[in-house]
């Protein structure tokens, strides 16, 4: 295993596994969020559940997942930039690959910017603020169009990252062939849609019905 982690494929496997872990986290996160649309009691109960000690221990692991994914993404992107010192004068990349697959780093960086905002506002208040009802807090927060719109844009950017990321993660660990590739691409679009629509519908709901 000596030089596995420094090899190109090894680095990619780390991207893949950390990415899949983040997708798993997003599934849990979205499920709890959707309780906002069920009722105030349901969402508050969900938040209380997420605050249980055995769930809390996952938090540092999750943070590590993000950190690893971001560091390796940066290393890969820098190396890949350096691999072509002289650029083409004319290039038609839209003819041979998807926009999302070419812009994974930009999409990721924008998701990261959103993550910083999310941590500074909602996450910080959940963790250290004096909140009586989590539902009340979230609904009055997302009702503000400036935040609501940012959350919707972030959901769409995340969805785009997943359209390529999901199937790419399986290809990286070798789980793909001519048949499975089509299936994985379908599932990738499904997940991307669920995340983009799922995370957007909540701010939309509060912006429209919030008063």
């Amino acid at each position: 295993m000596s030089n596995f982690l420094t090899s190109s494929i090894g680095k990619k496997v780390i991207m893949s596994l950390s990415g899949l872990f983040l997708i798993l986290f997003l599934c849990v996160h979205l499920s709890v969020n959707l309780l906002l649309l069920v009722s105030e009691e349901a969402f508050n109960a969900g938040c209380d559940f997420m605050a249980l000690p055995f769930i809390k221990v996952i938090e540092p692991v999750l943070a590590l997942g993000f950190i690893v994914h971001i560091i390796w993404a940066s290393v890969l992107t820098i190396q890949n930039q350096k691999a072509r010192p002289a650029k083409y004068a004319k290039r038609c990349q839209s003819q041979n690959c998807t926009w999302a697959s070419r812009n994974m780093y930009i999409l990721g960086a924008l998701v990261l910017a959103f993550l910083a905002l999310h941590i500074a506002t909602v996450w910080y208040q959940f963790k250290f603020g004096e909140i009586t009802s989590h539902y009340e807090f979230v609904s009055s927060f997302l009702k503000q169009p400036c935040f609501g719109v940012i959350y919707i844009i972030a959901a769409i950017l995340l969805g785009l990252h997943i359209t390529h990321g999901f199937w790419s993660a399986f290809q990286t660990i070798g789980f793909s062939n001519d048949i499975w590739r089509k299936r994985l691409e379908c599932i990738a679009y499904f997940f991307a849609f669920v995340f983009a629509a799922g995370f957007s519908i909540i701010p939309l709901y509060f912006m429209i019905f919030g008063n």
Partner: protein
Amino acid sequence: MADKILKELTLKIWRQKDAKSQGGFKTYKVHNISTGTSFLEMLDILNEQLVEQNEEPVAFDHDCREGICGTCSLFVDGRAHGPDDDVTTCQLHMRRFEDGATITIEPWRCGAFPVIKDLIVDRKAYDKILQAGGYVSVNTGGVPDANAIPIANDKAEEAMDAAACIGCGACAATCKNSSAMLFVAAKVSQLALLPQGKIEAARRAKAMVAKMDELGFGNCTNTGACEMECPKSISISHIARLNREFLKAKLKD
């Protein structure tokens, strides 16, 4: 049907004296090109014109001119081997272009393929990757009798698809990461699928990937651009197999 004539074409071509010089684009005009002319023949016509004017002809790679050797390269109008899918540049024809068009012609751009002169790049990097493990070590003797070694039809077919790679370098040239994964995958896959090559599969995958990394090719991010530009339509499913072979080999270490 008689071929149409393209009255005038403007060519923006990368000129570079040698590996050390700074290059730049120069613009040329060619006239009365028949649409049946191949792209390389069109460049031959330009070169004759340049020789007549006592100018240095444009250097470009070519050999078989029938899509089998992989020598021709060229990034034509923003795409490896030009606008057609599944062809080499020598198989590209002028009927693909409109009269009056401006065509941009560049060498492969990839750190591991340095420009030697004008449109010619040094693709020795691919040879070095092959030398690192793209072979079967034992002497396999003469051609074996048919069916002496049973090979399942699907395996034989897939190995044959991978073996179609002509080492042209379009995959790394087109990849946004300058990754050579499709080439390496084709070679690893072709041999790993067959009994003669299977024995050394683990060593081969490790050695070829290590060489590819060492030579400064980028890291694959599965954009799939390589398979779209590959003149032999090598599928990126072979990259998945390479990843599998590499992971298996590393886990066993």
